[in-house]
């Protein structure tokens, strides 16, 4: 456990200090803060107790449009750099097992990617509450939607972003990932064959409709139920576990070859 905490803490400290991450998040946070705090008249919503969960879910779904793209691109070099810099050879000479290394690395990057987002969400929500535009319960609702919609999306993309660049060039992965996020989450399945609408969708629509009621004021019936949302989270969790397992076998194979 102490080894896991050591890897986790080291990775978290390295990731959170990256200037690139703060530039990326800074740009997105400014964009989102402006759109949340000063929406256009046709987009402005009144947060009441009746619509609170729907609007909180809508905000989280909107944040999931761009934030996981940034997190996925930025996380893509976190494990590959250990191999490129020869650090992994040093690590393999220590009693650190591959599984502990992978889990420490994964949760370190995940925590470093999510922490600024959670803090920023709390700050923006506090501003909405302080200016009288939302009830205090929004703090709780936003925290719940963060864990139900944003955390699974980040967890899913970061797992692939750590593993895939070990078997393909970094830039190739980043191109494929950016294309995937649009293709797999936002292209309607009626227009083009896509993962969107399946249980592999990571954008958060299943949880948004299943747990939080979908878009406020929309007359169409909801496509996904709470069961679909739970299945979606389970499938995403299984995918993450599968990626970690394959990565573990891959690193063991690499160690044997060395």
């Amino acid at each position, binding site marked *: 456990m102490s080894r896991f905490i050591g890897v986790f803490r080291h990775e978290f400290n390295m990731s959170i200090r990256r*200037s*690139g991450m703060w*530039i*990326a998040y800074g*740009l*997105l946070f400014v964009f989102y803060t402006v759109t949340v705090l000063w929406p256009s008249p046709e987009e402005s919503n009144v947060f009441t107790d009746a619509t609170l969960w729907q609007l909180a879910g809508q905000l989280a779904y909107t944040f999931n*449009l*761009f934030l996981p*793209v*940034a997190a996925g*691109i*930025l996380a893509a*070099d976190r494990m590959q750099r250990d191999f490129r810099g020869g650090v992994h050879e040093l690590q393999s000479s220590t009693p650190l097992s591959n599984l502990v290394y992978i889990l420490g690395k994964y949760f370190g990057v995940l925590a470093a990617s999510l922490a600024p987002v959670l803090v920023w969400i709390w700050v923006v929500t506090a501003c909405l509450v302080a200016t009288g535009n939302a009830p205090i319960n929004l703090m709780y609702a936003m925290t719940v939607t963060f864990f139900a919609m944003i955390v699974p999306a980040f967890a899913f993309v970061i797992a692939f972003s750590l593993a895939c660049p070990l078997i393909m*060039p*970094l*830039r*190739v992965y*980043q*191109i494929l990932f*950016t*294309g995937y*996020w*649009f293709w797999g989450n*936002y292209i309607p399945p009626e227009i*083009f064959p896509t993962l969107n609408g399946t249980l592999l969708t990571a954008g958060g629509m299943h949880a948004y409709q299943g747990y939080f009621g979908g878009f406020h004021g929309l007359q169409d019936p909801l496509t996904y139920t709470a069961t679909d949302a739970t299945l979606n989270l389970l499938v995403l969790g299984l995918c993450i576990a599968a990626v970690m397992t394959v990565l573990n076998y891959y690193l063991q194979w690499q160690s044997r070859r060395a």
Partner: protein
Amino acid sequence: MKRFSLKYTLLTYRLDQLWFPLAFLAFFIILTLLLRNEVQNYDIARAYVGFAVPLVGGFMAAYAILDDPALELRFATPIRAAQILLERTTLIFLIQAVCANAFLLFSLIIGVDFSPLGNWVNVQLCWLLPTITLIALGTFGALIGAQTMVGSFLVGLVWFVELIVRDGMAVNNWKYAYIFMSILSPEHPDLVSNQIALFALTIAFLFVAWALLRKQERYI
């Protein structure tokens, strides 16, 4: 010594800059042949030349200069910043140009009608302008952040945001920075202004990238 630069570029050339665009091209050709749908053929052709080619070009450009293991040695030679910038970005652009035109040719052979996009020059501008803009943005981002990751992020973000909010981009002052206007809104009354603005933006990004590349100590 200065003439040696092109040879160096070819010798140190990363092969994924070549095989990946070609693999992408092959994938879209196979997809078109598999779907065999006249309406979708046009959409796939637009998706490839208008979206995929600029994305690949932009990401490749983000890695073009700084992702060189012998960067410090290269800076120690009397090669000018403009020459490094030009030879690295031109090669990426040429590969994308070949891929885009190969796919256009393939589409024409299977009978795709590009007349909604305008004449031949307009069809060329549909991939050319977004590609050079994202190449310039990727180079600029990598150099201003002194990290390839910043360039990649900027390319990915701009591409993704403009694709998601495409309707909004076409109606306000953002229309001048809307890189997909030629391919998505060929009838837009401000199309020419948009194309001129994108070209100017490309020149501006490349100029700043050139100025940044002259300060070699930032990347060592």
